[in-house]
C-alpha cells in the first residue's frame, strides 16, 4: 500500500494538474492566439497561425485596457490604504480595551464578514450623497464591505502581542497616536500582509458591486472584460475574450510566481494558526 502510494502519488499529481488546471489554461492561451474564424468554436488545437500579439493589441484598444487598469488601481489602492489604517486603528483599541461597549462594537464591526451588503440601496444612498458613479463612492463601498475582515484579523492578532512594548513607550511619554504609529503598526506587519492579499484579491476581481456603483461610469478591468465578453459572445469573438482574460490574469500570475510563499502563508495564516 505504502510503496504503491509513493509510486502512484507523483503520477496522480501530475495527471491532475495537467487535466484539471492545464486544459482550461491551455484553452485560454491557444484561443487567444487564433483568428476569429478559427476561434469561432474554441477547441484545444494549436492555432494554424499565431496572432497572439495582434489579438492582445486589439483588446488593448477595444477593451480600453489602460483606462481600465488605472480605474482598477484608482479604486484598489485607496481602498487598501483606508482599510489597513482605519481597520487596524479600530482593532487595536477594540483588542486592548475589553469593555462591554467594545464587545458590542466588535460584534457589529465583524458582522460584515458574513452578512451580504445591501447592493441596491447603497446606490440610492450614494445618489443622495452625490457620490453615485464616482471612484470615491466605490472606495467607500468596498471599504465598508471589507472593514469587517480587517477588524476581525487584526483584533485577533493584537491580542497575541504583549502590551509591554506599548507601556514602555507610554512611560517614555509617547501619546496614543505615536504609540500606534511607531510601535503597534510595525508589529502588525504579518497580519496586514494577509489582509492586503485578501482585499486585493476580492476588490481587483470584483464585478458585482462595481456593476451597481460605477457600472458604465468608470472603467475597471473586470467591468471591461464583461463589456468585451457581452459584445463578444454575441459576435463570437472568443479570441478577444481570452486575449483579455490573458492580459487581465497575467499580472496576478506573475505576482503568484514571485511571491508564492508569502501568498500561501498569508492566506492560510488568517484561517488556521
Amino acid at each position, binding site marked *: 500500500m505504502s510503496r504503491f502510494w509513493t509510486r502512484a502519488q507523483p503520477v496522480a499529481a501530475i495527471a491532475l494538474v495537467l487535466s484539471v488546471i492545464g*486544459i482550461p489554461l491551455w484553452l485560454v492561451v491557444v484561443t487567444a492566439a487564433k483568428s476569429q474564424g478559427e476561434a469561432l468554436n474554441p477547441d484545444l488545437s494549436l492555432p494554424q497561425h499565431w496572432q497572439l500579439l495582434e489579438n492582445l493589441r486589439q483588446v488593448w484598444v477595444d477593451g480600453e485596457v489602460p483606462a481600465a487598469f488605472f480605474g482598477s488601481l484608482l479604486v484598489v489602492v485607496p481602498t487598501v490604504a483606508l482599510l489597513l489604517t482605519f481597520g487596524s486603528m479600530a482593532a487595536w483599541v477594540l483588542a486592548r480595551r475589553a469593555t462591554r*461597549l467594545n464587545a458590542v462594537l466588535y460584534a457589529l464591526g465583524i458582522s460584515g464578514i458574513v452578512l451580504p451588503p445591501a447592493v441596491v440601496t447603497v446606490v440610492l444612498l450614494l445618489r443622495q450623497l452625490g457620490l453615485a458613479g464616482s471612484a470615491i463612492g466605490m472606495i467607500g463601498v468596498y471599504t465598508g464591505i471589507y472593514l469587517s475582515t480587517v477588524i476581525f484579523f487584526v483584533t485577533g492578532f493584537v491580542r497575541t502581542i504583549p502590551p509591554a512594548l506599548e507601556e514602555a513607550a507610554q512611560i517614555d511619554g509617547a501619546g496614543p497616536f505615536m504609540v500606534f504609529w511607531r510601535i503597534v503598526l510595525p508589529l502588525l506587519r504579518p497580519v496586514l500582509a494577509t489582509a492586503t492579499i485578501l482585499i486585493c484579491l476580492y476588490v481587483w476581481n470584483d464585478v458585482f458591486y462595481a456593476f451597481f456603483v460605477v457600472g458604465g461610469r468608470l472603467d475597471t478591468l473586470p467591468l471591461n472584460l464583461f463589456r468585451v465578453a457581452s459584445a463578444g459572445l454575441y459576435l463570437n469573438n472568443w479570441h478577444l475574450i481570452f486575449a483579455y482574460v490573458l492580459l487581465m490574469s497575467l499580472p496576478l500570475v506573475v505576482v503568484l510566481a514571485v511571491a508564492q510563499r508569502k501568498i500561501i502563508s498569508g492566506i492560510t495564516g488568517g484561517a*488556521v494558526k
Partner: protein
Amino acid sequence: MPVTSAAVRERSPVRPLPAPDTPRRNTVKRQTHPMWFLAPAFAILLVFFFLPTLFNFVYAFTDWSGFKSSINPTGFDNFTQLASDGTLLRAVRITLVYAVLVALFQNLFGFGLAVLLERDNTLNRVARIFFLVPVLMSALAVGYIFQALLKPQGSLNHLLGIDYAWLGDTTWTIVVVAVIHAWKWMGLSMLIYLAGLKTIPEDLIEAARIDGASRARAFWSIRFPLLAPAVTFNVATALLGSMNGFDIVQATTGGGPARTTEILNIFIYRTFGQGLFAQATAMSLVLFLLVALLAFPVIRTLRRREAVL
C-alpha cells in the same frame, strides 16, 4: 463617545497583576487607547454598510422604481407579488441548493488535493501553486473559460466523445455551475486543509501505528477528526460565500436555462437593470435575512472552535 459608563467595567485579561476596575486605571486606558481611534472605521461602516442595510428594510416596502421620481410605501406588495408567482421561493431554493453543492464539492476537492499533495517535496509544492491560479483569477474569467469548454461542440464533449449540453440542462446545470465555482476556490480549501494537517503531531499517528492500526485506520480515526476545525472553517466560508455568489453564474449561464440557475444575486442584478428597484431591494432583503438566519448557527459553531481562528 459614550465611554465613561462602559469603561468602569474594564477588564484587563493580559496583565499579570490583579488591579481590577479602579477608576484610575480607566483614566489611564482612556488616555492610552482613546475611543476616537474607532471613529473613522465606524463612520465608514455606518455610512456605507449599516445605513444601506437599514434602507433595505425601508425601501423593500415601497414602489421605488426607475420609471417615476416619487417613492411611496406599499406595504408587503413586493413580497406578495414575488411570492405569488413563485419567484421568491424558487430563487431562495436555488440559492440554497447552489450554496450546499458548492460547499460540498469545494471541500471534497480541497480535501482530496490536500491529502494528495501533503508531502513537502518540490513536485507537490509546484502542483499546489498551479491549483492556486484559479483562486487568484477573476471569477468572471473562470466563467467564460468554462462556458467555452462546456459548449455543446466544445472541448470537453470532444474529449469525451459525447454531445451533451452541460450548460443547457434544466436539472443538472446548477450542479455543473457549482462544480465550476468549487474548481475556482478548491485551491483555497486545499491550503487550509494542508495547514490543518500540519498541526497534527506526527507521534499521534505513530502511536496508533504501533498499536497496530492500518494506514487507512490511522488516517480516518485520528487525523480526520483532528481536522474538524479546518472543516468547519471551509464549510462555513464556502456556504456563506456562495450564497452571495454572482460572477460565475453570470458568466456561465446568466441564470438560465429557463432561470433554473437564477440565484438571488442574479435576480437582483436583472431586476435592478430593468429599473424595478423596489423588487431588487426586496430580494436583497431576503438574501440578507437568509444569510443572517444561517450565519448565526454557523458562527456559533465557529466560535466554539475559537482555537482555530
